[in-house]
């Protein structure tokens, strides 16, 4: 049929069925698609893929365009940079200690991930492998906590972390003749003011992922470990967790990305200064000067800020998908 394409397609189509019809490329494609729907699906698939690639990646391209455009040419920027000024990537670090903000973000992410993995491992073991009364209501309660908007926690946590909450020490009025109070520690402007809320907020998801993974380890392996001489906790750390490594990795990656992305507490639980553990949020908002708005620097900083999670996604994407497949959703 390929040789027919070049010929005239003026001819009427009502000819005998045994002869190949002469058609234009489009109608030919359409008819062959009807006979062979796979091709139509294939075409739809390519169109959709290209569309999605464009829509997800264009905003990053736009950041690059702005970052490379010199500040004095930042008006009516089109689809290509107005000039070439890679120095803005350096200027970002000169204007604010952007590396410290990034470091703070990484530290907060790692601290939260460690805490969440530890606590969620214990809880996941309990929910995935033990039978006890009150299990289902407790899982629901933990899930319900994640429904509340962070705003509902904000005011008391702010008071708590600024040392304004006094806990009466029981019995002190009897011993010392007056009631003594223990003031809550002043955690504002420390990592803990963010790490603690992050941990509470993101722990439920990890608990559900790890519950599923730990629940799938055959009972025999845990029994074997205990017969061989571990305690119940020993079996968790020596056998169950190592065997659930993909699930632990998934939970860890998701927690880290969540912390790195978080805005609410990252913005409100510090004064925005790098030495006070303000994360990325502080760095990018801090670029906005009092007298000017350096769009090219904001764009450059955004690109730099995305890099760590972009790398993480590239490395861990299989894990993220398979971890979710393995059952975060089944609960």
């Amino acid at each position, binding site marked *: 049929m390929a040789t027919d394409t070049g010929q005239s397609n003026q001819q009427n189509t009502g000819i005998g069925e045994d002869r190949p019809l002469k058609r234009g490329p489009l109608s030919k494609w359409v008819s062959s698609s009807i006979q062979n729907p*796979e091709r139509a699906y294939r075409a739809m*698939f390519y169109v959709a893929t290209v569309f999605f*690639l464009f829509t*997800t990646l264009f*905003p*990053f391209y*736009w*950041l690059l365009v702005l970052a490379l455009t010199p500040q004095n040419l*930042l008006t*009516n920027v*089109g689809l290509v940079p107005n000039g070439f000024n890679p120095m803005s990537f350096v200027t970002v670090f000169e204007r604010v200690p952007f590396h410290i903000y990034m470091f703070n973000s990484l530290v907060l992410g790692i601290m939260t991930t460690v805490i969440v993995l530890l*606590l969620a491992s214990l809880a996941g073991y309990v929910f995935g492998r*033990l*039978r*006890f009364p009150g*299990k289902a209501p407790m899982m629901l309660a*933990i899930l319900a*906590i*994640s429904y*509340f*908007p*962070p*705003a*509902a926690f*904000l*005011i*008391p946590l702010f008071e*708590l972390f600024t040392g304004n909450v006094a806990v009466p020490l029981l019995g002190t009025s009897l011993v010392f003749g007056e009631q003594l109070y223990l003031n809550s520690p002043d955690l504002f402007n420390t990592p803990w003011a963010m790490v603690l809320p992050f*941990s*509470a907020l993101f*722990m439920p998801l990890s*608990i559900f992922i790890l519950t599923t993974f730990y629940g799938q380890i055959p009972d025999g392996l845990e029994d074997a470990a205990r017969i061989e*001489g571990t*305690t*119940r906790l020993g079996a968790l750390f020596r056998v169950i967790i190592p065997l659930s490594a993909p699930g632990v990795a998934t939970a860890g990656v998701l927690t880290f990305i969540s912390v*790195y992305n*978080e*805005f*609410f507490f*990252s*913005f*409100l639980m510090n004064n925005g200064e790098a030495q006070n553990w303000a994360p*990325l*949020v502080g760095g990018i*908002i801090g670029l906005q000067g009092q007298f000017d708005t350096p*769009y090219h620097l*904001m764009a450059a900083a*955004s690109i730099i*800020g*995305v890099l760590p*999670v*972009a790398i*993480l*996604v590239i490395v861990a*994407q299989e894990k993220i*998908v398979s971890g*979710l*497949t393995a059952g*975060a*959703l089944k609960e």
Partner: protein
Amino acid sequence: MATEQESQGAIRDSSRSGPYVTAVRWMENLSETAFAYFLLAPALLLLLVIAIYPLVTTFGMSLFADAISGSASLGEFVGIQNYVELLTNQKSYALPAPFLPTSLTVGGIVSSALGVTLIFTIVSVFFETIIGFAQALVLDQDFRGRRWIRVAIIIPWAVPIVIQGMIFFLLFQPGIGFLVGTSQNPSLLNQLGIIGTTPLVNTIDSLLIITVADVWKTTAFMALLILAGMQSIDRSLYDVARVSGASPWQQFKLITFPLILPTIMVAMLFRTIAAMRVYGIIETTTGCQTVPSLSCLVVSSFSSRTYGTAATVAFVTAAIIGVVVSIYIVKFADAEGGF
């Protein structure tokens, strides 16, 4: 071999002593229930201090009037008056934007906290589901370079909210880009009447931008969850369908869709909860004055130290989310029962 049982090399645990061994022995002898609660204790303690204590305190605060003088943080006890005032829209004196729409016009609805939050939630979750589903279908295919396409589609989800806000701020800030023109030199979007020339201070334009920004970032999350659902479908079902002569469309309609419907419902539930608490993207793109979402009200009344009002709005927001969650759960139970 039986004669040298446990003879050398090791000490039998029963002969060891010390606090560590005592602790281990104590833990091993806990009943299953006691052991379960023992291991849950750290997680529960964290949730108690960081989540439950604040929730209870917030609720308590919501029963007090705002402080009048600068020194105290709360005024007198007023019971449910804050709630009454908020729900009858008489709290505007303490809030930057009304809670309920003052008029049933488009402008009236989007300038109220509840109206703008609900519109944002419905529109963004609707488009995220549709597009996320399409993306999941693409990602579910087996093709060369799938790994990189997948990375490209997932990446927006991993972008920090502050950077997401920055991106859309930079796209729509008048003067720098080609998306927004001036009245003399309108851009394509201006000419089509989609946005005005100062979109970031116009409430309707800003709502549109924030919705697009949210769809851009979180569709990937939706796609991931739906993809996870698709990949957990037993592949042999498709073989059965193919042998029975089902076309790809029929396979989709009869197998894929019904089997991932529960997944989609759960994913929509997650997204709805998150969308109703929207704050960061607004703060970083247009600011809370332009798009006053519920969380915006809480933060701004918190910043102006009207704690009673802030707590009330926070709790009402949680209650509204609770209502929406219950609706989903009821619907979800229906969908489950339908099979």
